[in-house]
Each structure stands twice: as structure tokens, then as C-alpha cells.
């Protein structure tokens, strides 16, 4: 996978989140959305290039071409349009991809560039004043699809455990959990009985199919939640998995969580294997 980080700032955090939420919307899975994206963390005024509050977002795609296309489209529709928002590179790399490089043409000839401390920025006149964006951001090799499954005796308890894990995992830099609230209820397996589908429901973990398929679930399991993690390095993802599982463990015996598992898809889904026992040592 390829990944990038963009820093979005605005007049206040409220508008930085409006911009970031729009930019990372409909970006849960590369299968259907092209990219997986999410808010990595909040940034204070001292952490942003322009001294305003902001957020860092991470965006991942299967290849550089898709990442570049999606980044430009989302910049144009979500950041350019958002009042007071500005965008800056959040990661350096030898591979730099367009952030505002092509978006500048929206300025219809009134756009101006400014090189400050060796970095090029574009100033595009818009109706609320000026939209400021850095010309490029870095693109790096990244890893997607790290995951673990929470098996619990009820849906409510599975979700409660997942929420607890997500709160702990949000503190880890360089990772995002791209699904709604960080949690997936529709984990998939590779392939399907239908020729046009290359992924379908993970029937082995569907509690309502326990008697009908080769199940992975013991009788008391009534609900399974999955947390998927994308990150810049193997170590980042492994750390977030560790903290997430440890957080679930703090809930104690009455949490309803009976087992933590993971989808390895027969090793068909990529070169990286996150072995939970080793991660938790």
C-alpha cells in the first residue's frame, strides 16, 4: 500500500474537523472507496505550520496512482470548499505527490505561489479570502488491513469492548482505524459463490450461521466486531493492536468478551502477518 499524511488547519478545531471529516468520508475500504482514510490526531496551534488548530489525516491506497487521484479529488471537494481551511504536507518523502499543485488552476490565473523556507505554497483566491495549500505532500510505503476480532456473548458487549479498544488505539501515532467509529461489523472473506464478488461475508464468524457453516464460533458467542488498522509501519500497527487488546482486557471477566481472534484470510491478503500472541508478549 501507499500512504500519505495531510495536515488540515482552520480558524478553529470545529472547522478543521468539518474539513477533515469531509475529506476522510466514504473512505472505509479500498475495495469500494479507492482509499482508506481517517483522522490520525488533533494538532495544537504549536504543531501546525500556520499556527492555527488543526488535525492530521492519513490516507492509504493500494497504489500510488489511486492515492494521487483520490487525494486531489478530495482536496478539491472537501478542503478547498471548507471555510477557512488550509492544507499542508504532513510527511516528507522522496516521492512527493500533488496536494495543491493542480488545484491551483481553480484560481483562474489569479492564483499565486510563494516559496517559504524551501517549500512551495499556493494561494488561491476564494470567496472567504484566500485558500492556502502546500504544493505537494510525501507518499510513503505503508501497510493496510491489520486487524483483530472481538468475540463476545452479546452485540452490546462486543461493541462496548470495541469502543474501549478504539479509544486506546487512537493514542497511537501513524495509524488510523478507517471504519465507522473504527469498528467493522461486516468482516469479509476472500472470494464468494458469486463470480462477480471477490469478497463476501465472513460466514465462519457470523453468529447466526453457527449451525449452517464451518463456524469459528463457540456456542456462547453472539456477536463479533472487527477493528481494522492501517499504518505507516508494521511496528505502528502492532503497537495499536497490542494497546487495543490490552484495553479490552482491563474490562475484566464480566465484559462478555470470550475470545480475541484475527482474520488472516489464509494468508492471501498481503505479505504482513500480525501474530497476536507475539504482539502481546
Amino acid at each position, binding site marked *: 500500500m501507499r500512504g500519505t499524511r495531510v495536515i488540515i488547519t482552520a480558524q478553529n478545531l470545529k472547522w478543521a474537523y468539518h474539513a477533515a471529516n469531509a475529506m476522510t468520508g466514504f473512505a472505509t475500504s479500498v475495495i469500494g472507496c479507492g482509499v482508506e482514510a481517517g483522522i490520525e490526531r488533533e494538532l495544537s496551534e504549536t504543531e501546525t*505550520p*500556520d*499556527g*492555527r488548530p488543526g488535525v492530521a489525516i492519513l490516507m492509504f491506497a493500494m497504489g500510488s496512482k489511486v492515492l494521487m487521484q483520490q487525494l486531489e479529488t478530495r482536496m478539491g471537494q472537501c478542503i478547498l470548499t471548507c471555510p477557512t481551511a*488550509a492544507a499542508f504536507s504532513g510527511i516528507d518523502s522522496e516521492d512527493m505527490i500533488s496536494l495543491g499543485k493542480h488545484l491551483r488552476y481553480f484560481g483562474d*490565473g*489569479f492564483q*499565486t*505561489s*510563494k*516559496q*517559504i*523556507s524551501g517549500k512551495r*505554497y499556493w*494561494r488561491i483566491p476564494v470567496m472567504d*479570502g*484566500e485558500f*492556502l495549500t502546500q504544493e505537494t505532500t510525501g507518499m510513503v510505503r505503508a501497510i493496510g488491513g491489520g486487524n483483530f476480532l472481538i468475540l463476545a456473548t452479546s452485540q452490546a458487549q462486543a461493541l462496548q469492548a470495541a469502543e474501549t479498544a478504539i479509544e486506546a488505539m487512537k493514542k497511537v501515532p501513524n495509524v488510523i482505524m478507517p471504519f465507522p467509529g473504527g469498528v467493522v461489523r461486516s468482516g469479509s472473506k476472500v472470494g464468494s459463490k458469486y463470480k462477480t464478488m471477490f469478497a463476501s461475508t465472513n460466514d465462519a464468524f457470523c453468529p447466526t450461521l453457527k449451525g449452517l457453516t464451518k463456524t469459528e464460533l463457540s456456542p456462547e458467542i453472539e456477536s463479533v466486531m472487527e477493528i481494522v488498522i492501517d499504518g505507516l509501519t508494521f511496528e505502528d500497527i502492532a503497537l495499536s493492536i497490542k494497546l487495543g487488546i490490552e484495553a479490552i482486557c482491563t474490562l475484566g471477566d464480566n465484559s462478555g468478551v470470550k475470545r480475541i481472534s484475527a482474520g488472516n484470510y489464509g494468508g492471501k491478503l498481503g505479505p504482513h502477518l500480525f501474530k497476536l500472541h507475539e504482539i502481546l508478549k
Partner: protein
Amino acid sequence: MSALTFTLKANLSQPVDCRALTPNLLAGLSIAQINAIKLGTQKVTDLFEVSGSDTEQIVFKNSTAKLDYIGFKMSRGSIIITDDAGNFLGAHLQKGTIICQGNAGDRVGDQMRRGLILVDGNAGDYVASRMIAGTIGVYGKVGSYIGFNMKRGTLLLTQKPTLHATIQDCGTHNLPFLALLFASFKQLTSVFNQVESQRVQRFGGDLACGGVGEILLILT
């Protein structure tokens, strides 16, 4: 390595063309070679006491308004002028930073393409004339016809100038890029390192040459 420093030995009666004394032209030269460089009819050694060795950082001391073309076609590094500079300071500047801690003459940044020129004192006529891009700041007063035939680029001022007809008032604004620009000034030995206000009156032009340059009057 300390900055390569040119200390003027005596007051000059005639202007001296200093265009040979830029980081890109002096790189790799020894002090002896630098002393032998001809500036018009005289050699460097006749005019300046030369010390230091870092050609990427050049300092002019005891400088006067007779020193013209300082930083002409400079393409890297920095020049600091501790006193006054003459005409055509930073003309045709390609890249790098020039700081004049005194006053500068006419045509500051004439046809500059990129880079930064800051003048802590006053500047003469035709500041930013034929400017292609880059940034110029003048903390003191400026003369007439500033931004004449300016195509792009930014001229920062702190005092209201007299503008010619083809520079137009675009109103008063908060410009976000100034936060980045002023943050980059913090490390410079110029009075501009204290500027923080992002509120400016913006003048656009020079419309006589289809320019999208700007003159920003910093408001406090």
C-alpha cells in the same frame, strides 16, 4: 566556518559595482583569489578588508550607498549588509536571502525572480520594478513608482506608499500565508523578525503589464 565578510576600508567617492561578490560566484575561491577580483577599475583588496571563509554567508560591513548591485543574480546563500546599500540591491535575484540593515538605493529587487530581500531602513524609487516573483520587505519609507511593471511577487511595507495609477487597492484582509512567511523571518537578523500581524491592505498590480503582483501594507 565564519561568514565571508567584506569590510569597507574607506568612504567611496564613486559607485562600486559589487555584482561579482555573491555566494554562487565566490564559491571555492581562496581569500587571495577573492582579493584579486576586479570591481570596475579597482580590486577587492583595494576597497575591502576580507575575512571569514563561508562563501554561502556573505556580510558587508561599513557599507555605504555607493555599493551598487549587491546580490545581483545571486542564486543561493545569504548576504547581510550591516549599513547602507546602493542601487539595484538584489536585482535579478534568483534565490537566497539578502538583508540590508540600513537604507537601500533605487531599484531594489529589480527583475528578481525568486528569493527574499529585506530592507530595515528606507528604500529609494522603483522598489520591486519589473519584479518577476519572490518577496521584498521594506520596513522604512519607499520612494516613487514602487512595483513599476511588477509581474508577480510580494512587496511588504509598513508605511503607506505613494502608488502610481496601475497599482490598485484590493482592500484590507487577513492573509493566512503571512503566518508562514513571518514565522520564517523569526530566525533572520532583521527588524522584520518582529512582525506578526496578518492584517494587511492589499494593492494589486502592476496592471500595466497584466501583473498579479501585490504590495501588502502591514497594519497593526
